[in-house]
């Protein structure tokens, strides 16, 4: 590969990245603004970070979001993995096509519809809207993402590993926990992370399914912004960006290292 940096190339790269990242960079810069006015630069300061941690409303919302995210991602991971197992392993049961279509429908379903239908359901069965209903709603819509990720891994899974385990005396349940689960664990972890992230930044479905006392961070930010953006919100968003960025970078470094280590091991093994 021999990239020649023509003026056209440079321009399009700069424009593309500016389009993607300029708003975020602005947000980060203004989170360090001394001034109370969001769009006027008044010198560097970290005071909004301090006041953010003293803002009980935002902190409560963050805590709710975190709990909803962890619980819903965990439950969705269990259900999504089970669905993926059923869909890849028992390929001949009645209504498989219908079932797999139904599992993946929420992927393309407009969030407004998912949210509204969940709301109707909760009202119909008389569930008071609150922490439980948001969590249930998030399990519902993140489960299919987990199923997709885990199913992709199971497709390339060598079934003879399971046969070998059974051949060596492990009954099906033990085989699952000692062989299948550890081998597909990376996909399950990615599924969990995906579900957690989706739950973390969901606004639409949470707005429908949540009730008093269970305001999530995106809902809180959205409602505050309608009253005017404060530098505190900028600080909160910057922290969220930092958490996500650190997570993504750490995950890719770990992956790269493992890949590199594996290649080196394989080369060493080939040499004898």
């Amino acid at each position, binding site marked *: 590969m021999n990239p020649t940096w023509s003026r056209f190339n440079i321009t399009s790269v700069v424009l593309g990245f500016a389009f993607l990242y300029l708003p975020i960079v602005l947000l980060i810069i203004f989170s360090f603004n001394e001034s109370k006015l969001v769009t006027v630069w008044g010198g560097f300061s970290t005071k909004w970070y301090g006041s953010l941690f003293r803002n009980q409303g935002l902190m409560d919302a963050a805590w709710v979001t975190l709990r909803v995210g962890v619980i819903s991602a965990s439950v969705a991971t269990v259900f999504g993995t089970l669905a993926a197992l059923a869909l890849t392993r028992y390929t001949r049961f009645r209504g498989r096509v219908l079932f797999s279509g139904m599992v993946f429908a929420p992927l393309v379903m407009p969030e407004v519809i998912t949210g509204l239908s969940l709301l109707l359901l909760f009202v119909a069965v008389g569930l008071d809207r609150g922490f439980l209903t948001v969590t249930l709603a998030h399990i519902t819509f993140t489960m299919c993402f987990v199923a997709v990720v885990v199913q992709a891994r199971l497709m390339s899974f060598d079934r*003879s590993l399971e*046969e070998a385990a059974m051949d*060596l005396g*492990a009954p099906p349940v033990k085989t699952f926990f000692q062989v299948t689960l550890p081998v597909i664990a990376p996909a399950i972890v990615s599924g969990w992370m995906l579900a957690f992230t989706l739950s973390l930044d969901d606004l639409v479905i949470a707005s429908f399914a949540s009730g008093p006392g269970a305001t999530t961070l995106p809902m809180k930010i959205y409602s505050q912004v309608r009253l005017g953006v404060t530098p505190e919100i900028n600080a909160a968003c910057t922290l969220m960006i930092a958490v996500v960025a650190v997570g993504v970078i750490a995950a890719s470094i770990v992956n790269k290292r493992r890949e590199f280590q594996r290649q080196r*091991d394989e080369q*060493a093994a080939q040499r004898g």
Partner: protein
Amino acid sequence: MKSLGSIRRSFAPWNDPSAKPYISFENVTKVFGDFTAVDNLSLAIYEKEFFALLGGSGSGKSTLLRMLAGFDNPTSGRIMLDGQDLRGIPPYRRPLNMMFQSYALFPHMTVEANVGFGLKQEGMPKADIDARVAEMLKLVKLEQFAKRKPHQLSGGQRQRVALARSVAKRPKVLLLDEPLGALDKKLREETQFELMDLQQSLGLTFVVVTHDQEEAMTMADRIAILDKGQLMQVATPAEIYEAPASRFVANFVGNVNMFEGTVASRDAGIARVTGASGAEIVVDNAGDAAAGNAIAFAVRPEKIKVSSKRPEGAVNAMEGEVYDLAYLGDMTVYRVRLADGQVIQASALNSSRASDDPLTWHDRAWISFQPDAGIVLTR
């Protein structure tokens, strides 16, 4: 004393009418959808036998092995192991272990943990597991690799881990699915003899599935030739090679020349056979072929002599032209085209460094063979 091939076997329970089969397939049929993988097949395997299932793809050999291991169940018929019907017994309760073609090593476990996996399932105490694992790794010469993961091993080492893992539980029977398929030629030849030694020293019954006839010939006490889910022949390697039961078996194992013809006359064991072109050959051991029967006389290339002149006193001799030659060092392969167009393959061992009767391309040449050089095939 005459014996087929050049081997005298002392281990031959299949010839002993009082010997009981250890594994037996009784009228086993396996149907997948509308495909019959195994078709009403019966087969007996004896204790401590090294038994090979040989066939092409789709011959049903792997299905037989999988049914024995318990991963598939027969559609009809039954499989007996040591007098016990295996029907309904899940794979994890069968006293046999399998070595998989892909090796199926658990990628998240070390070599040690892989080898000890089966013992752990049995609930063996940790100290005993460690001792057995060490013993197994010593057996396959992988002691220093105990802490490695499978991806840190070469293909040959992985194969040996798979082997150690499958014999760690001291199964009564070891099933091997194309055990040497993924190894290169040199390693394969070494490993063949290692497997035979292992089978001898552990006193196990081995059932190996292979598509490689050389592998089966080298290792097995007996070979079953399979085609389209049916058993073609079960016999020792020497019998398969020197006395194939049908044209299919003769063609499947090794090279063969077929002299097709009709039996003209029969006198005790001797028959005169007239070929399509009118040439007559005399054959011995004609079996039950009666006058008028269409038969094939199958002769292996090394039992055909090639010479520039008609050998004196030769009973069966035909003239042709040297069509192709291949000098392979230890032997030379001749392809001679006869007057009727049939190409005969003959091979001569180069037992001395120079030849008295050198031939070259397009020479006139005679091929000759003894009446008992081949076998009469009616099927």
